[in-house]
């Protein structure tokens, strides 16, 4: 009897999980579907799930009108660069907070997180002025720096929680065996925290890839990433939903594929440990 209940509950949970999953995925599915319709069918009412003329024309138009590879390349460099730079700063920071905390460590952690509570537009002018002053406008370097800084609190927090779960005794043992600080972080801590670091890397890469405030406001022609590519297909006067959907699909495809292949690490990292 008890077994029957568990099975029923299992089925219910599975159905619920699938329902939620499909609900979350639906907008993406709809975008992809719309990208294969004509402009007239894209706005058809009732919405068309099937029976439309499958067309690749939108992709051809988008391909012809914009240099997709340039946007893609900028996205890869900006998201990749900011992630690597962020990890280089965050690993030592999280190490010191997790293993040699001071009286103020908790405050610093909270203060770092509080910078995420400020709407980005609040610092648009200061950041713009700094960019003008240092000639960073429309450069990939400038964007790498900004995206690294805005994602840093999240990376430090994530790494901090992973590091906290690693017994300090192991590091102590390494130190007693004569390991230097560098060796301790590089050869003892990092290998043990690989799943955590990997999921932090992935999450940060996705966040940087999708970031659409600074990447739109600090770029023009040469450093504009895929977010600017999508934005260029939105129109105040005219219906271009099919083309906009094609552009969006092209912009999310690389990150979607990356997420697909690394979902195991991502899930493992995010649910790593007993308390999460």
């Amino acid at each position, binding site marked *: 009897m008890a077994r029957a209940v568990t099975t029923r509950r299992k089925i219910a949970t599975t159905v619920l999980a699938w329902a939620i999953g499909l609900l979350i995925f639906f907008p993406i599915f709809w975008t992809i579907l719309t990208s294969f319709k004509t402009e007239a069918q894209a706005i058809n009412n009732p919405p068309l799930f099937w029976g439309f003329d499958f067309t690749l024309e939108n992709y051809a138009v988008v391909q012809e009108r914009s240099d997709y590879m340039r946007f893609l390349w900028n996205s890869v460099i900006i998201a990749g660069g900011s992630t690597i730079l962020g990890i280089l700063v965050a690993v030592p920071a999280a190490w010191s907070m997790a293993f040699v905390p001071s009286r103020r460590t908790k405050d610093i952690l909270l203060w770092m997180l509080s910078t995420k509570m400020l709407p980005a537009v609040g610092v648009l002018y200061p950041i713009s002025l700094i960019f003008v002053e240092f000639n960073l406008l429309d450069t990939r370097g400038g964007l790498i720096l900004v995206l690294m800084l805005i994602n840093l609190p999240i990376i430090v927090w994530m790494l901090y929680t992973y590091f906290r779960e690693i017994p300090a005794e192991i590091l102590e043992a390494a130190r007693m065996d004569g390991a230097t600080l560098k060796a301790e972080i590089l050869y003892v801590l990092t290998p043990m925290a690989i799943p955590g670091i990997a999921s932090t890397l992935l999450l940060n890469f996705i966040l940087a890839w999708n970031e659409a405030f600074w990447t739109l406001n600090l770029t023009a022609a040469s450093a504009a990433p895929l977010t*600017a590519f999508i934005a260029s297909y939105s129109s105040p006067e005219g219906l271009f939903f099919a083309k906009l959907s094609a552009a969006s699909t092209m912009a999310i495809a690389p990150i979607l594929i990356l997420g697909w292949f690394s979902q195991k690490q991502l899930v493992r990292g995010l649910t790593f440990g007993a308390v999460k």
Partner: protein
Amino acid sequence: MSCKTALRASAALALCVFAGAAAAQDTTITIATVNNGDMIRMQGYTDRFTEETGIAVEWVTLEENVLRQRVTTDITTNGGQFDIMTIGMYETPIWGANGWLVPLDNLSEEYDVDDILPAMRGGLSHDGTLYAAPFYGESSMVMYRTDLMEAAGLEMPAAPTWDDIRAAAEAMNDPANEVYGICLRGKPGWGEGGAFITVTANSFGARWFDEEWNAQFDQPEWEQALTFFVDLMNSYGPPGYATNGFNENLSLFQQGRCGMWIDATVAASFVTNPNDSTVADTVGFALAPDNGLGKRSNWLWAWALAIPAGTQQADAALQFIEWATSREYIELVAENEGWANVPPGARTSLYETPEYQDVPFAQMTLDSINAADPTNPTVDPVPYVGIQFVAIPEFAGIATEVSQEFAEVYAGQQTVQEALANAQALTNDAMEAAGYR
């Protein structure tokens, strides 16, 4: 060894210098623009400009609101990212007055600046100086279904009143078959629903401010206008009209779900295009309605090209602007894509072209533009310029909030009186804070 290194270094240096000199010769200008049909078409012809002048062009296309934010930040921080910006009739006089734009007072003779429609030229100038050249201009007008009007036994006057519109909406309304008498903008935003209700109010004798910059939402004219609009839309409009803007209504009209649509004249070429519109053959046009008080409810707008004061390439930028807004450019588009696809509403000569007069919406577009007077937009005198907007920097913020109050009425969340009281209070507060009162 060191000699070799020195030789290599000097060779590298020489190369750099040569490369630098070569780069300096071919100028590149960067243009910020929106993704509207006419702009996309222009991007397609840029190669010809580059061939003629040797000036390369980089396009940065952005969503309208992002563009405004981006361009404002760039101008105020002297970022110098853009050599040409696509801006509208609201920004141009304000930015011109602030010294943010290069005055267009040295246009060449062949360009023939006097050919620009007077209403456009007036709206894009400050103190008589032109600050942006119109790429295309628009007003608003009534687009209606001739087949549905015929079936209802009605005829649309060329210059209807609001009562005519109401009667036509009632006659064509058929919600059982998902055909609604009239589709109008309700979506919050100063340039969306805010623009439409403002021009409607103008025709009812209302105004935003009196001559002392006091808000006028407590006056009976505003209550009449808003009550009429809400009643018209609740009776004969599509459900959920509080969130409909230009694109939503365009979609509804193209699918044959609206008897009438009063909106930008530029929509005429979309709804009559058989590739996109199911009602392309049965669309008629009329002037925007009035209420017998001498002011019609039509606006005036232009998408125009301006040169920000921070640019290093003002000469090349001016060359591009002259090319893109010239008579020759219009002819180039007409030759390749037909007269119905040329950028409308900018030049007088276009409307004198015999071929263009055959385009079904041409005359009505011109008449609508000519019926709009930005310097004298309301029945009673006002201290401001602008028809569907008030050309002061504070307006965008205030009008967006006011249009949100109104949208709550459209959605049935508050009454007309409550919304007007809120609008009155928030407008006066903002104007006081800005030092007008």
